[in-house]
């Protein structure tokens, strides 16, 4: 299901994150790229270079907005002024869907600027879903929520992470941005089978996927986005596309960013792993897989 209500019925292919070190290359060379993902917060400013570059990009490319500060899992309601600014950006980019994370990160207006894991409780799922609906109704654009990588689990949890994700998106009637690398990182940190996770999410709601690199430490994996994608993550990605269909996919590379060509080549490797899903209905393909 390449196109569904949760990605605005689009079929976007392989995208890249729009990052400052690549601005001049992209504007000068105009490389062929299916789409760019922007971090919304980097463009929620009054003017200057960020918005000028964005407008130039919008003349040539399709852009999808990805956020890092909505904190659907935080208890406080969304800030109205923040939503107004975000909506102005949504109108500017004409993003067909908008994503942010299934996490919390602020308390009473104090921000951690981190994507913190939630306790997987029914109460949290209900509250989070209500917030997602509020944001979607205000912004008038489909929302996809992204699973985060995590390093801690809570005693209070009443279900698995994938059950929680499913519960939230069903209650909110929203989409999923399935971050395959995050699933892998969390599976190693918490000792679950990443294929159980992939098999357990509602596949028809997956509107986008993320792939990225991570770093191995002695006792845990850290989601660093500063490496090429590792083999086990590619294998998971192949399985995910067999389950969900060929879905808009984005490579995240946010630190120690190499040349544009290197990042683009890495992203396009995704095509090698989605062959099995092409031309077959997702469920059928998954059975074959």
């Amino acid at each position: 299901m390449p196109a569904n209500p949760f990605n605005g019925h689009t079929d976007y292919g392989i995208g890249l994150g729009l990052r400052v070190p690549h601005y001049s290359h992209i504007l000068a060379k105009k490389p062929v790229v299916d789409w760019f993902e922007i971090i919304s917060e980097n463009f929620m400013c009054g003017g200057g270079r960020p918005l000028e570059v964005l407008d130039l990009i919008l003349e040539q490319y399709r852009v999808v907005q990805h956020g890092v500060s909505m904190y659907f899992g935080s208890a406080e309601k969304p800030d109205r002024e923040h939503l107004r600014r975000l909506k102005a950006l949504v109108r500017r980019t004409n993003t067909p869907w908008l994503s942010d994370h299934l996490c919390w990160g602020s308390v009473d207006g104090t921000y951690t600027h981190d994507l913190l894991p939630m306790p997987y409780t029914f109460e949290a799922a209900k509250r989070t879903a209500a917030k997602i609906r509020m944001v979607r109704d205000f912004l008038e654009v489909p929302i996809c929520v992204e699973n985060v990588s995590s390093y801690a689990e809570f005693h209070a949890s009443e279900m698995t992470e994938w059950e929680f994700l499913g519960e939230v998106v069903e209650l909110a009637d929203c989409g999923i941005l399935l971050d395959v690398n995050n699933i892998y990182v969390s599976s190693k940190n918490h000792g679950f089978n990443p294929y159980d996770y992939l098999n357990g999410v509602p596949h028809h709601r997956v509107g986008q996927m993320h792939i990225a690199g991570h770093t191995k430490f002695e006792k845990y994996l850290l989601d660093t986005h500063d490496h090429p994608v590792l083999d086990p993550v590619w294998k998971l990605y192949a399985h995910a596309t067999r389950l969900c269909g060929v879905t808009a996919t984005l490579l995240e590379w946010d630190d120690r960013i190499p040349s544009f060509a290197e990042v683009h080549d890495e992203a396009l490797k995704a095509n090698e792993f989605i062959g099995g899903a092409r031309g077959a209905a997702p469920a059928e393909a998954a059975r074959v897989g």
Partner: protein
Amino acid sequence: MHASLLRPLAAGDRMQRKWTDGRPMAEVAAEIIKPNDRLTAFDRLEIYNRMYWFRLVDCFHDDNPGLRAMLGARKFDRLALAYLAKRPSRSFTLRNLCSGLEAFLRAEPAWTAPRTALAIDIARFEWAQTVAFDEEAFAPVTAADLGASPPSRLRLAVQPYVQLLALNHPVDAYVIAVKKRDTLRAEASNATTAARRRAAVRRIRLPRRSKTWIAVHRVENQLYYKRLESSAFRILEALRAGARLSRALARGGAGVTTGQVRDWFALWTELGWLCRRK
């Protein structure tokens, strides 16, 4: 969990061993977080505690290269921790992390003594660059617009991205020199060890006290700093405060000539600094 993340790190960048009520932190962490076969609840919470501080301190460093050069690394690090502990981020974006630094330095001068006045000037100048970089710009007025209304009726405003600073030190030259030095050091990273060491120890002379008026602004999305005469600064400040043109010109002082006013306005309209008051 939120409160534990915001607590400053202990020596060696480790999480503090005791909670605020004196209980062992390991016990407090274990109440909410599960251990696994490799990490205790303390270890897992510590990952987040460290990431929080590393992220914010990095950002504080990036935003204040001049202040860091002036204070020296050790004193600057202590200031960063004190500021971030007292004023955690209240904005969705780290762009605004240092918006309260000037007020903090005024309220707690001990962190920058004996050069608090200079530290405040540098902090203001560095924050002004953040604002000038991406603050809103309205359609600029032209010389023809200026001629179309009598001065007593004309309500002009200064573009929001133009930052007007009345300082006690010429910190613009100082910060430029610091950035230039740091750029050269970065470029010299493949040079010989001796050359790197020489570059590392080169100190830049601190600016002496001298009244300085500066506009931090942008042209074609590049940041610029422009020294202003005090009377020109007062006119711009009056326009920003909402004064009509005739009243703003009066704020310039008796010594201002018609020729000066004409030249200033010609320059300011050419730079696009002036817009209509909404």
